[in-house]
């Protein structure tokens, strides 16, 4: 009888353990509430800001734009600063979820590279300023991939069957196939989307895994030989596995960015603007991006960067490479078409 009690208790514990979640703490001092991606800032840079302005920074993280949207839409969080990606900025503007930025408080905006100002998803930078940007290209391991790689077509090469990695993201992957066929990555033409998906269906048997969050590890561990990888991730991978090479395919590819934005009704809007301005200081910027390893959009920061950083072609893409890129635009109702085809692709059903 007693042992039955133990078993019941253990079972209950097991079920409880499955549903356990961690909860964060909170503080009472005046503070800047940031909601962003994990490890998106250099810790020291944040501490310097706290000391300089005598404030506390609380930093919560999300794993994807959709989580961010859901939380902001529900009115939750009480955040002062968020970092949506390009297409999400557009969606949030449409949903009236962002405060217009007061550029008077952000004079350092002038330091941003011209090519990253005035983006298609937020004309005139009314609501957002770029934080970091990158492109989607092909990363491959020279140990296993001996052919010259310069086209998306190379992913379809039967020699790499079972070793191809793709991002776990419908717009990225279908956008890639659209680019391969010479179309816009944000087309709303269903015929073009269908043709791209039919092409992808021939690629799926070669795919080892769809992965966004841990695709870096799969390349480092040589699980996959070739795959669609973001330029910033490629720079990270090469540090751990020097056999990895990276190209932006000749057909062109997708450019993306994460941006500073302030959600509607933020309590400390001015402090958030002060923070953005501080981060855009050339020296602070150099320190921050040197640490996190993404490309620095700050044109005036280059002299403060290390030689190694300046010479890294995965961090600093060439003008010519950037010219071939296109932002993922908002596709409106066609998103449902993309989602359905994506489901077909991954489930192997129709």
């Amino acid at each position: 009888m007693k042992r039955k009690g133990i078993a019941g208790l253990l079972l209950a514990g097991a079920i409880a353990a499955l549903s356990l979640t961690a909860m964060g703490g909170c503080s009472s001092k005046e503070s800047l509430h940031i909601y962003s991606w994990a490890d998106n800032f250099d810790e020291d840079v944040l501490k310097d800001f706290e000391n300089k302005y005598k404030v506390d920074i609380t930093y919560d993280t999300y794993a994807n734009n959709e989580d961010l949207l859901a939380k902001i839409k529900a009115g939750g969080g009480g955040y002062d600063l968020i970092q949506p990606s390009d297409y999400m900025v557009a969606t949030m503007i449409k949903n009236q979820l962002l405060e217009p930025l007061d550029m008077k408080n952000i004079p350092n905006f002038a330091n941003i590279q011209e090519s990253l100002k005035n983006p298609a998803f937020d004309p005139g930078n009314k609501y957002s300023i770029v934080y970091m940007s990158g492109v989607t290209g092909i990363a491959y391991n020279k140990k296993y991939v001996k052919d010259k790689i310069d086209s998306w077509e190379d992913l379809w090469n039967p020699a790499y069957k079972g070793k191809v990695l793709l991002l776990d993201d419908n717009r990225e992957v279908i956008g890639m196939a659209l680019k391969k066929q010479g179309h816009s990555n944000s087309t709303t033409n269903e015929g073009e989307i269908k043709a791209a998906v039919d092409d992808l269906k021939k690629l799926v048997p070669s795919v080892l895994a769809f992965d966004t969050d841990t695709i870096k590890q799969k390349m480092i561990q040589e699980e996959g030989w070739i795959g669609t990888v973001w330029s910033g991730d490629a720079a990270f991978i090469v540090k751990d596995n020097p056999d990895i090479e990276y190209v932006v395919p000749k057909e062109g590819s997708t450019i993306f960015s994460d941006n500073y934005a302030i959600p509607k009704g933020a309590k400390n809007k001015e402090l958030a603007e002060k923070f953005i301005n501080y981060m855009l200081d050339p020296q602070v910027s150099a320190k921050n991006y040197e640490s996190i390893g993404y490309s620095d959009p700050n044109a005036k920061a280059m002299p403060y960067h290390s030689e190694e950083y300046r010479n890294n072609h995965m961090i600093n893409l060439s003008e010519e490479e950037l010219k071939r890129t296109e932002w993922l635009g908002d596709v409106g109702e066609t998103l449902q078409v993309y989602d359905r085809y994506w489901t077909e692709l991954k489930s192997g059903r129709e």
Partner: protein
Amino acid sequence: MNKSKFLMVPVLLWAALFLLIPMLIVVVVSFLSRDTLGNVVFPFSLTGYKTFFDSLYLGIYWDTLVLSVVTTVVCLLVSYPLAYYIANATPRIQTWGLILITIPFWINFLIRTYAWVLLLRTQGIVNSVLLHFGWIHEPMQMLYTKGAVLLGMVYNFIPFMVLPIYVALEQMDKRLLDAASDLGATRWKAFRHITLPQSKSGIMTGCVLVFVSTSGMFVVTDILGGAKSMMISNIIQSQYLGARNWPFGSALSIIFVVTSLILILLFNRAMQSKADRAKEGTA
């Protein structure tokens, strides 16, 4: 006796607040429409339910059911002998056996699943050992396969099967077995006519727990299966997040809950009537 009813109040409040009300919201949303921005809006609509009957989503639902049933059966086949052994062991071994089975639950579910990645990947522990001893000459592709998904599911849910079966077996009146043997029954006969029927409640509880947990799971297919297959929960998640189609996601959830309930009821009834027939047979 009456006073003890008040002890139920906190649980009932909890259930009402955090189970019933959210479920009702999901039911309501499932009958609404979405606008072009992905907001949930009036008028009432059955589109979410109609979309489910597309062969694409029906097919994925079928795949989910098949994987859940296979996982449940494999769990049962592995767990029954284990539970049987523990229930018939010395008290000391029983305690240790139960603790060992539940220890993995003290570790986060995701970490346990990622641990399998370290074991199974091409440069992982299993491949390295096999290569070292020359049993294979090229690393085997074990990760990101259907087999890895099944392994991950079975591994994670075995305790849900072992514990209820153990409880049932432990409760059983062992004198019945002595009586059977005195009357000349073989051990197999005694097992079939006494032990198995007596542990039926445990088997039923275990099967339902494993089936429900498996069919609602999506992390295992992502981590060990390389996100190459879709389960109904993947679709629900993507409708709530990426596709921003909450009415369809809600409709899928409702369909999922209702069909699971029906399947469990059918299963219970099948087990029950079988037991009744067995009783009539012995009477």
